[in-house]
């Protein structure tokens, strides 16, 4: 019994290591040909349209509502301590440091990365990638790298849009609806948000999330079993793995970035 358990444990560890090794080699392969996006910019633009531009609606609407909810909840707590005017800085810091990068990455994983996995998986299942390879066109460079780079470039931009929409939502609820002083809202925000510490660190986070989510989506698609079930489970794995990776990476990055800051 113990032996069987050990055997199963060993097999699962070997499988995991095997897949990690495959993922590492694949990632290196993708990154090493990613330069094609500079030479053939149109490939990147096309993918940025499908992944980024088409995610604009969900990102901006979500940002707006998250900002509005933050304003209601924040006001409720802050006014107990008589500091309702700090609502601006509370909302802005929450969005720029955390919610912007994290929630936009989660939404991006659900909206765009899943589609990339399904697309590449189906291209593989219908031998389109094989056909390309036989025409002496490297599918890693032509298909995979532009989709990966699109995630890396789009996600920080989407996070900025998410945060901006959130601030707007908080302004609408906090200032227009609840009646916090307009000047206090903006000046508190301006005083407390530091460009390097808050905005830049937030952007760095979204670039890291973009790399992670982008690599996971293309890896899962490229290695999906060429069946309906294979593609569907690869798509699910993309969303689950991406979301978990974003949350874990966020913790690691937050600890290393904001440690020691008051």
């Amino acid at each position, binding site marked *: 019994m113990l032996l069987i358990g050990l055997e199963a444990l060993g097999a699962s560890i070997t499988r995991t290591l095997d897949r990690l090794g495959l993922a590492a080699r694949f990632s290196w392969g993708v990154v090493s040909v990613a330069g094609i996006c500079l030479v053939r910019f149109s490939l990147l633009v096309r993918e940025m349209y499908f992944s980024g531009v088409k995610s604009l609606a969900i990102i901006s609407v979500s940002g707006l509502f998250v900002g509005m909810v933050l304003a209601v909840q924040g006001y409720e707590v802050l006014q107990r301590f008589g500091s309702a005017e700090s609502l601006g800085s509370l909302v802005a810091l929450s969005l720029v440091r955390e919610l912007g990068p994290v929630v936009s990455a989660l939404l991006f994983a659900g909206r765009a990365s899943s589609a990339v996995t399904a697309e590449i998986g189906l291209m593989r299942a219908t031998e389109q990638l094989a*056909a390309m390879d036989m025409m002496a066109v490297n599918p890693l460079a032509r298909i995979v790298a532009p989709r990966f780079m699109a995630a890396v470039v789009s996600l920080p931009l989407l996070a900025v849009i998410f945060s901006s929409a959130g601030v707007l939502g908080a302004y609408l609820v906090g200032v227009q609806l609840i009646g916090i002083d307009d000047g206090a809202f903006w000046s508190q925000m301006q005083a407390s948000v530091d460009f390097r510490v808050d905005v830049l660190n937030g952007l760095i986070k979204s670039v890291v999330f973009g790399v992670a989510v982008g690599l996971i989506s293309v890896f899962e698609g490229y290695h999906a079993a060429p069946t309906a079930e294979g593609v569907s489970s690869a798509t699910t794995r993309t969303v689950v793995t991406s979301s978990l990776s974003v949350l874990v990476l966020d913790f690691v990055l937050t600890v290393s970035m904001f440690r020691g800051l008051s």
Partner: protein
Amino acid sequence: MSVATTDAMTDTMIELSNVRFGYSERVILDGLNLKVPRGQILAVMGGSGSGKTSLLGLLGGRNHAWSGEVRVAGQNVSSLNRAGLYGLRRQLGMLFQFGALFTDLTVFDNVAFPYREQTDLPEPVIRDLVLMKLEAVGLRGAAQLMPSELSGGMSRRVALARAIALDPTLMMYDEPFTGLDPISVGIIGRLIERLNQTFGMTSIIVTHDLNETLRIADRVVIISEGKVYRDMKPQEVRESQDPFIRQFADGLPDGPVPFHYPSPAYADQLIGEA
């Protein structure tokens, strides 16, 4: 005499010597020897899983032989690096079983793809070349359609136009007749024959469709148990009394290739287990 020998050597398009290949632990090809001269239409036949498609993979460098040597157009495929392999593949064309058209591109853009990726030709020249290739397969009028709007036979013809775009010296066809109506089978068969003659290509057809294949092939090779089982002329296939070939030619469900998947005795299984 010496001239003839030299010709014979340079006129070999494909040479496989003692090739062994498989997936994980399953051996598919075991000691396969095959030589194909330039300009020939060779049909490769055999049961499902006999290694016909793997053979095409080996020729295109998508599969790597465990041992033995695969030479295509004088080059040892397994010794090539990626750049060398891509250099070789520019001389090869492959028609995939279901066409493998790029579903996000129109018929025109599918055929234009090899030109745009592999050449620096200006767009007006590409346009003319694409229209010429589409004319050759009779689908110039379908240039602006999407692959989803095509029938199976039309997809296969567009894929053929794309495969011959760069005028390959070797064309590989993976089950080109599968799933097509008799008219489309006839059209694809004639196209293969005509392309071979017009462009002086060498063609390898992996197929199950005996009638059409025997009509157009110069030579038929039957693969079984990882080796070349028979190497004959189409006429010899028609007249052969070999039970394996007869089963194949006449479509008999049972014979040397058994109908049943290996299983315990039927009666034992029905009665033995409650």
